[in-house]
């Protein structure tokens, strides 16, 4: 995919709205969002619970479709893709880090990290090298044969980070990645993600109300009641 004409933005949204039907009642989740998220930056979406952060991330991650509006992710008009093409697009360009880690329980740490490479049909030797390298990078080389239930919360999230990054995606989305971790582990995870973002030159987009995360952000987008609040500077201590 040619991103050279993307004007340096990983995501562009124009008047995007999203509403859900709750029975017969239409409940708006996002209202006329227009934003541009820069590439290769550590971006954070903040907002109170129920403000629409996760909905916005879902739209960016192409796992949900907007009700109205136009959006491009990594230069691709998402509305033009069929479900299968969208799956392929996700498999190649987007990495996900979930609040609950969402590792596949029957697979070992190694196999979980290897999984996205199988979807992109990466050749066997390269797949193995990439997987091992990524596990080493997140400090879990010694735990590669462990199943998720044999790992701590922090270790599981490290596996999830390795899984998200192993295929070298354009975009990594993390929905409150530290919410289920203690503050010390959360800090180390944020540090690791920032480090990986820097070394892999990947665009990271977080949703969080964790101050530790916000302090690491290069760009902050605040959502309130489904609307984008005017962009503002990252809190003190952030890197730019």
């Amino acid at each position: 995919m040619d991103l050279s004409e993307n004007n340096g933005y990983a995501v562009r949204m124009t008047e995007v709205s999203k509403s859900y039907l709750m029975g017969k009642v239409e409940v708006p989740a996002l209202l006329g969002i227009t934003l541009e998220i820069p590439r290769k930056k550590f971006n954070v979406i903040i907002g109170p619970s129920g403000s629409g952060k996760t909905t916005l991330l879902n739209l960016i991650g192409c796992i949900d479709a907007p009700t109205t509006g136009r959006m491009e992710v990594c230069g691709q008009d998402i509305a033009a893709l069929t479900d299968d093409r969208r799956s392929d697009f996700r498999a190649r360009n987007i990495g996900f880090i979930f609040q609950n880690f969402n590792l596949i329980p029957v697979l070992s740490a190694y196999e979980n990290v290897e999984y996205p490479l199988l979807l992109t049909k990466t050749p066997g030797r390269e797949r193995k090298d990439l997987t091992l390298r990524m596990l080493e990078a997140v400090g879990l080389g010694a735990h590669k044969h462990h199943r998720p239930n044999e790992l701590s919360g922090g270790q599981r999230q490290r596996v999830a980070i390795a899984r998200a990054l192993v295929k070298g995606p354009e975009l990594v989305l993390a929905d409150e990645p530290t919410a289920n971790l203690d503050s010390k582990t959360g800090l180390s995870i944020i540090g690791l993600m920032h480090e990986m973002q820097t070394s892999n030159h990947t665009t990271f987009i977080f949703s969080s109300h964790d101050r530790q995360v916000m302090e690491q952000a290069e760009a902050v987008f605040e959502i309130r009641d489904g609307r984008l609040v005017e962009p503002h500077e990252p809190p003190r201590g952030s890197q730019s």
Partner: protein
Amino acid sequence: MKTLQIAFRNIFRNARRSLMTVLAISVSAVSVLLFGGFIFAIMYGMQTSIVQNIGHLHVYQKGYFDFGSGSPGAYGVSRYEEIIGAIKEDPQLKPLVQVVTPTLNVYGIAGNFEAEASKTFLGQGVVPSDGERMKNWDDYKLGERRHHKESGLSDADTEGGVVGIGMARMLQLCDKLQAENCKCNGAEKAVKVVEASTRAASASPPEIQPAEQPLPQSATQPELQPAQASADGGGEDFSTLAELDIQAKAGEKPDPRPKLEILAATVGGAPNVVSLYVNKAVNQGVKEMDDSFIKMHLSLAQRLLYGRGEKKVSGIVVQLKHTRDIPVARARLARFFSDRHLDLEIRDFRELSPMYGQVISMFGSIFTFISIIMGVIVLFTIVNTMSMSVMERVNEIGTVRALGVQRRGVLRQFLMEGCLLGTLGATIGVGAAVTVALAINAGAVTWIPPNNVEPVPLTILIFENAFLLPGTLVALVVLAVVSSFLPARKASRMAIVDALRHV
């Protein structure tokens, strides 16, 4: 790739539930295979029994099958020896045929005048040595499990015969024949010499001969020709005919075997009587047959029905080496008769023994019913198991979809799991069924199948039919995959965000 591996691991995720599912499939496989094997044992056993007795094909004079039993003599096959010889030498039939032999059906009255008992009979004249060879037919290799008793007939004994147990009972022959399961009503009546025989004896006292003396030959047997009968005995009753026979035999050596006088109408309609020495009483399986059946040497039946006239037979029995050759042999025989302008018709054993088809059809219906029940059980078990699996893995489904797995990838994953469950269950079931079948076959349990008169070992023929075992295996696996389809489809159609939100 990972699909199989993940499927394999997932079925052990809830080991107890998977075990119950696998067991349900296994039990179904065992039930279907054992019952199927039992039905094949019945089918092959029945077929073997029928083919050993009546062969595969019967050749009749046209019309005999429909009308011949009312007038067997009128539908006799002439020059049957030539026809049999030609069939045996036909280059196309020769490799297919095992035995070709004539048979003659006769109907009449059999009397034991020593006991003042008589009974209508249904008789069959056969060539004993051909009958013995027919008993060797064993296309399904059941021989080691079945043992045939002596038929009681031999080519040399042209006046010997066997009767049904019921016939022996009614004609007061049980004690003399020492037959199993044959008990006459009280003591046999004291030998009562009819007046005619007394007169004959006083006129010419019989010379008592030791039992070892050779059997009387047919050549010495007097026969009543139609013309003779009408002239000499046309207006006489059965006992008068017997009296004449006794008079004629007054000078002969007595035979130690119980003797029956059998009377039948000849082709010309006149009565004829011959003597039959009973060698044995044999259970015929069906009471009606048992009460009236007599099997005798072909020449004796011919003398009874044709007297000194042209000897015919009511049919030619063709026993093939293999049942599967029936269509080829039948077609060839039809052309063979057509080419020679012979007005003959061919019937196979299924037409002659409709009970065979009825029994097979009945067991087939039961088998189908049981298979459907088992199939429904398997279907619901797998649907339940897979639905539970889908419900437990909603979040996982959302995750893999988010990672880029397409809908059909999720569908394939769950179908693979259903397939694995089916394969495991069916394989274990097949193994268990084979073990049980081998144990039953090795055991000494016996039963009397339909159309049999002797108990045979209870047998489960799983391997003899090429389709039973692989068919059951494949059917269960296919059923497992089909059963998984709905839950798998549901999983593949989940909205990713809803699945990820699921707790």
